[in-house]
């Protein structure tokens, strides 16, 4: 039997969605304004701001660097986070709560403090490897997100299914890939998405650790806003919104997992 949804509920959800989406439409409209400065509503129509942004090597370089950084950080966070989450949820370890608290502490300490502390540490170590510093810094703040979401999945794994598979003669690697993996996959994917987004959007850690050769998108956006508040900023914002939409579509179509399922 299918439950009917109240028209009132539909209306309320519609209004909420409108409130959420409306601010995203504003930069899209401002980005097509044919003026040397940002105006709303837009005046005239032009796509030249998109052309300028896409042709700008600084913008392209920052965007590609952020993608590379976020992808590497996500891979490392998953490599460290999945075994860590499995260990913390499936076994009793001495000092388990302390370990968990330590791992999650970057979520509690203000990121700007974490950033300056990391810069001090790297300086004392004599490190000049900016890219490595950024990877470490971003991994520190992304790892808690991976561990939280993957841990939640491991907690919900039905141990009876594992026992049943083992009793039926399935070796451990088959139990892991055919029984456990399908149950934890959504949590891992959610952790990967969070990790990627947190790294891609990070400003406070990058502000301390980046340099002119390693300049992520959020820092670039800040400098562009200071340079000139023209519609090219709205064009960059619009491209980032479109990129996020594309990411959602890829996740849904390629991985076959809806965001609604991840959120549930």
């Amino acid at each position, binding site marked *: 039997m299918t439950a009917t949804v109240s028209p009132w509920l539909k209306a309320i959800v519609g209004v909420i969605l409108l409130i959420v989406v409306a601010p995203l439409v504003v930069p899209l409209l401002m980005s097509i304004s044919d003026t040397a*400065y940002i105006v*709303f509503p837009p005046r005239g129509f032009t796509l030249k701001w998109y052309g300028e942004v896409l042709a700008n090597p600084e913008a392209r370089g920052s965007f590609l660097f952020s993608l590379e950084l976020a992808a590497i950080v996500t891979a490392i966070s998953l490599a460290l986070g999945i075994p860590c989450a499995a260990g913390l949820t499936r076994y009793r370890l001495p000092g388990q709560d302390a370990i968990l608290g330590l791992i999650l502490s970057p979520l509690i300490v203000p990121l700007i403090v974490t950033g300056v502390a990391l810069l001090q540490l790297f*300086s004392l170590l004599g490190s000049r490897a900016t890219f490595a510093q950024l990877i470490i810094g971003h991994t520190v703040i992304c790892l808690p997100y991976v561990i939280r979401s993957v841990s939640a999945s491991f907690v919900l794994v039905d141990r009876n299914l594992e026992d049943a598979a083992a009793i039926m003669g399935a070796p451990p690697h088959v139990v892991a890939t055919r029984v456990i993996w399908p149950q934890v996959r959504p949590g891992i994917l959610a952790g990967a998405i969070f990790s990627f987004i947190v790294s891609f959007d990070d400003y406070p850690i990058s502000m301390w650790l980046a340099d*002119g050769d390693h300049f992520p998108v959020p820092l670039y956006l800040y400098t562009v806003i200071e*340079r000139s*508040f023209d519609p090219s900023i709205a064009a960059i914002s619009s491209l980032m919104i479109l990129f996020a939409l594309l990411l959602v579509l890829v996740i849904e179509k390629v991985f076959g997992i809806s965001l609604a399922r991840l959120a549930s």
Partner: protein
Amino acid sequence: MTVMTRRTFGKLTLGAAGLAAPLVYSRNSWAAGKQIQIGIWGGSQGEFVKKRIIPAFEKDFDCRIVAEEGFTLANVGKMRATKDNPKFSVMFIDDVAIPICKQEGLIAELPKSDMPALANLYPRFGFDGWGSALAISVAGLFHNTEVTPPDSYAALWGPEYAGKLKLVSPKNTPSVFFLIVAAALKTGKPFAEAQYQIDGAFDKVAEIKANVQNLFDNGPQAANEVAQGQADIGLLELSKYVYPYTAKGAPVTMSFPKEGSFAGNNCQVLVKNGPNQDLAVAFMNRMLEPAVQKAFSEYAFTAPPVSGIEFSNETLKYLAYPVEEMDKRGLFTPDWEFINANRSAWTEKMNGIFAV
């Protein structure tokens, strides 16, 4: 008689260039392969430094300059965090931070003998040898061109401006200029004396609250909002954030009330014990050379701190230059050592007044 053909002339030219190039490179050969990291500002100034000044310098010195865009407080924070093992060699900061950096041992005195371009620096922009100004902006009111600005700051406290003003956030340096204005209006004294009486002027500061629509911490964004008519007047901001829009045709410009204006001095400092100090000093010297200063000023609409630069009348509309013009406009530079010692307390009071 030898006839010089086009081919002969070409060969001679190539030969001369070939002979001259090694001279240029040998003069700077000590810098070949060296690298320094510098912290610069964002904004149009940062853009010009990255795209024009650095590539030419790297070519002339066969070196590498890694520039990181930031702002004064962050740049000081980076110097503090890396004090024991400096990562940066040159930092661009505002004059407000120079006394702090000097006191904390973050910066070194400039080696005058290695910086011939210092000869043209106006003495007031030398900071006793602990840095040099690179660009001078004028801080004043910015307003929509359809609005007639008042000729005195005092008028901004009047009821006709209720809800029509944008005020600079206490986070930003020009908020100190606003406090000095409030103190000057309350005491009737000039800025030079009023700056020491800010503590007693917060009731005057509070009186303007009804006229303030909101606080801003991003100058270009605030200028853009005033251009769109979202507010009539903004106070106070540096000309380098407003005039680029004026020059583009946006309906926003600046005005300078009769009480006087403020100098916003963007400076460079030499990081103490930073890597490759010789290259750092050469870069700082390059920043002060006349050709660089002229192009830099014309791009960012700021006045150079050195004498002898010629500008067109069109450019001079936006600059307070030369030094006689700065004096004529009453450009005032606060006593930053006194200001810095009190600023955090004043910021708290400002936050208390303007908190929603």
